[in-house]
């Protein structure tokens, strides 16, 4: 287990540097920074309301980052990583770890920017809520992005459409933990399962995503995959 965790961290560093050098992180990061500039540029209302939007936006941005990390290596280079890591588990976990590190940086940027833009309106409690909400949204997004890429989806088109549908549907339901409730709690002060509850749900979603990716990599869901492909082929006819 310890070896797997170490391997996962090492994979996260490898993929992180790869994405850093290929600059595939630039588009989502610039998009996010741009929206933050609009959000906090004028006269933002008192905190934590403005953070609701920045946390919610970190949901798709996290998915984008995780997708970039999962797809950064070509198929042959990926076999070397898989073999070195000793199987699919550390690779899937590494993608999620690196993406979580990325969204943590962006989330911190949003929180700090908010504190400066709406100076004097943040309390210790709202600061903690804001930090947790950004982490929750970003991490859940990373889980969605990890599922909607290789090895579960081998084609870019279906992966993109599937991810967009899931992100829009789950991101707009303010009753749905973890993303909906986390963003809504900041905006209207309504409490869902609480900030820590959201974090627990987000962690569960992340574990479920890693499990799904590993199962697909191990060929565990081949039968289901064949059934779906067969169904699609029949629908097309």
């Amino acid at each position: 287990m310890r070896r797997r965790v170490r391997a996962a961290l090492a994979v996260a560093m490898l993929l992180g540097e790869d994405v850093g050098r290929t600059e595939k992180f630039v588009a989502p990061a610039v998009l996010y920074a741009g929206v933050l500039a609009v959000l906090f540029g004028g006269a933002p209302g008192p905190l934590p309301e403005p953070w609701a939007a920045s946390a919610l936006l970190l949901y798709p941005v996290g998915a984008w980052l995780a997708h970039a990390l999962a797809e950064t290596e070509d198929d042959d280079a990926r076999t070397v990583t898989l073999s070195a890591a000793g199987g699919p588990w550390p690779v899937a976990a590494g993608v999620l770890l690196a993406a979580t590190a990325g969204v943590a940086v962006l989330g911190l940027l949003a929180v700090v920017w908010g504190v400066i833009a709406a100076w004097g309106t943040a309390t210790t409690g709202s600061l903690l809520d804001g930090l947790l909400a950004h982490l929750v949204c970003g991490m859940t997004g990373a889980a969605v992005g990890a599922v909607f890429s290789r090895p579960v989806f081998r084609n870019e088109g279906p992966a993109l459409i599937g991810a967009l549908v899931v992100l829009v549907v789950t991101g707009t339901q303010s009753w749905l933990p973890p993303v909906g409730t986390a963003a809504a709690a900041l905006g209207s002060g309504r409490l869902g399962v609480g900030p820590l509850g959201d974090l627990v749900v987000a962690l569960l979603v992340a574990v479920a995503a890693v499990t799904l990716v590993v199962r697909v990599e191990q060929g565990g869901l081949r039968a289901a995959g064949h059934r779906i492909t067969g169904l699609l082929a029949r629908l097309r006819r």
Partner: protein
Amino acid sequence: MRLVGIHHTHPSGTVALRGADLDVEPVVPTVVRGPNGAGKSTLLRIAAGALVPTAGEVEDAPAVVGYLPDRFPAARKMPPRRWLDHVARVHGVDVDDAADRADELLEELGYDGDDDEPMGELSTGNARKVGLVQALSCDPGLLVLDEPWNGLDDEAADALTRLLGARAAPTLVTDHTGTAAGLPGARLHRLREGRIAATTDPDSVPLPAAPPPGAMMRLDMACAGDPRPLLERVLPPARVEGAAPGRFTVRVPAPDSDAWLAAALAAGCAVRSVRPVRSARPEDRR
């Protein structure tokens, strides 16, 4: 380490392996040969742990496996030594030790790429060398090499042959150049239509660990200028099969081949290939 009853079907529906069984030898190299599309690369990917088979078991896999895929110059922006450090860390071995070994191996293989250049801009040969060093430098309990002699120049190919000949740990190799079959003690297996061919198949009979009495080796050598004076005066006697300026081929008894090679290397020649002579007729063996 053993592969037992490996079946594999690709997501496209292509059946690659149909019940392949393979024991990887603990000391001598295990060589898998077979025609294109026989499933060699798929089998090696499974042995390396990069692919989970549809059915079958990989038993007693060691913790650290060094793997070189068949298609490897990876288009990366990372400089080669950064990548080697990352892979060592993923392997879970000490990064500094691995880097020291990698430096030695890169030098031995004659690597001359730029350290700061992205890997994607290396020449094919240098990229292959980085890939080989990645697999070798982690001190692997199992080494899986898919066509490792591909894309190497003569000197690097010889260096690799020496490295693999000196290795006394599980090694699984595919190779169409025939060099792997000449490694000391190499056991040959033939993969045909997704199965390891039975021992009744003449091509799959494992080579005995020691060469049989009377076995001959064919040495293909390169030298500067006309080889004839060299062959007549400097080198030990041998049956010359062909000689041309810059190149010659001789046949020597297998037990003498090492001494002969040493003499030829001392005389300034380079080894192009060393292969056992396959005798079609049994009377040749006498």
